């Protein structure tokens, strides 16, 4: 069995005293592609935010690359893709400038960007199919293209572990395909992936394991569950409101 990359042991998280995750244990080993599934509000995003140290644990422990999260400093080994690009204060930034931020974990604050940095940014832009938009302001891109920009930013740092928060939510079909391709290449090079998703779509063949979060706990850990009922139809259009109500049958054991 290969080395564990992420280990969560009996992790619990609460916001203002309200428990969001309770007693969650999860191990992701090198080379795995793990999808965290669950309805909105199930705690799946909180789980990966806790793994990244963005949300403090109220109990339990998290280990990244054999180091307790508190002592973990090798952030260049991790590429993080947030759910969406922050709106910011309206100062324009080009796609290339945003992607170049992904090199900072590797380069540090003081060293100016060099040739290796530029090459990595070029390669990352190419892998998500945005090389021709490099000089455009990110605000002029579609939602899917902005999402691809964020993925390129994470890939530019040449990480070993990618952590993605709903990378395909609200993303057009062309961008989903481009994203699935970039993910396949990353995994083929030996990368490990932990991603949160509401539904998998074209990512499904890439996923090696699925973890289903339900009401703050893990209720399934293993093979990717088959979509239930009308979700299973090949031409199924996912049109139910992404509200707090749970899709019946799929997440309950």
């Amino acid at each position: 069995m290969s080395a564990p990359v992420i280990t969560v042991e009996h992790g619990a998280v609460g916001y203002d005293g309200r428990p969001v995750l309770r007693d969650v244990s999860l191990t992701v080993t090198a080379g795995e592609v793990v999808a965290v599934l669950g309805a909105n509000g199930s705690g799946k995003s909180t789980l990966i935010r806790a793994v990244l140290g963005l949300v403090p644990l109220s109990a339990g422990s998290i280990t990244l690359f054999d180091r307790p999260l508190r002592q973990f400093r090798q952030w260049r080994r991790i590429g993080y893709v947030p759910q969406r690009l922050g709106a910011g204060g309206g100062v324009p930034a080009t796609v290339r400038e945003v992607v170049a931020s992904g090199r900072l974990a590797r380069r540090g604050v003081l060293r100016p960007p060099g040739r290796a940095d530029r090459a990595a940014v070029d390669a990352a832009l190419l892998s998500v199919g945005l090389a021709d938009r490099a000089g455009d302001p990110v605000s002029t891109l579609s939602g899917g293209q902005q999402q691809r920009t964020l993925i390129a930013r994470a890939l530019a740092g040449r990480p070993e572990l990618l952590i993605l928060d709903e990378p395909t939510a609200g993303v057009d079909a062309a961008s989903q395909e481009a994203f699935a391709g970039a993910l396949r290449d990353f995994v083929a090079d030996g990368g490990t992936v932990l991603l949160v998703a509401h539904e998998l779509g074209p990512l499904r063949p890439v996923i090696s394991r699925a973890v289903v979060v339900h009401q703050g706990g893990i209720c399934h850990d293993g093979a990717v569950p088959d979509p239930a009922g009308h979700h299973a139809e090949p031409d199924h259009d996912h049109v139910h409101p992404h509200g707090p109500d749970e899709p019946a049958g799929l997440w309950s054991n």
Partner: protein
Amino acid sequence: MELFQYPYMQRALIGALVIGLAAPALGIYLVQRRLALIGDGVGHVALTGVGAGLLLNRSPVLVAVIAATIGAIAIELVRARGRTSGDLALALLFYGGIAGGVLLVGLSDATSANLNAYLFGSLTTISPGDLTTIVVLGAALLVTMIALRPALFAVSHDEEYARVSGLPVRTLNLMIAVATAVTVTIAMRAVGVLLISALMVVPVATAQQVTRGFRSTMTAAMALGFFAAGAGVWVAATADTAPGASVVLVAIACFLVVAVTGGIWRALRRRATPAAAPAPEPHEVVLG
């Protein structure tokens, strides 16, 4: 033009140019993180420092630097907590700062003319010592803001991502806070605490209407700040107007010119290419 033969006018011009160049270099990060008015708040706090300096017979600018730095760090700590009460905490700090300043200046022997010099600037009374302070601090500020641009951009653009990249987010944020305090105090002598934010923000607002990237916005904003400072001092010298106000009005005039020209240009371009509707995104779902 003969006016610029006098050393005090030369000092006024050099001081204004340095501030015109440095203020937007910091201001772009403040605009990026939606803190465009923070300079105003820090200026209010700096005024308490001025009052304390006048009362204690110490250099008002020096005491103002200390007060503004404490104020800016306090504001940053409130912001980092991200709680809703932050808004009110900032308001308390702002009004406490200006009230404290007015009170302390009143207690000292200073006249209202002294207070006005700090509220609205007094470029023509800059001493050689003042100018050295402005040039040295201004240069340090410029070098820091330009050399650390990738990191400061990352923190201002997406703070969570910067944290996951292992950047020293808290240090960088405190650095921006201290830089704000320094800018406010050196700009205080030029445009006054009530007009400082204009020099940090207006050139950035003007530049971002026509630029496409962060670096080009920063460069253009610095060029605009430099121009507004030079032109403003020239207008003040020729028309005998208040220098600080002249600089700010030139900057705002630039903004209006760019906004109107840009609007007309876009309208003309739309008319020239009428039927070019953007290709719609493919549908992901079928509604109804």
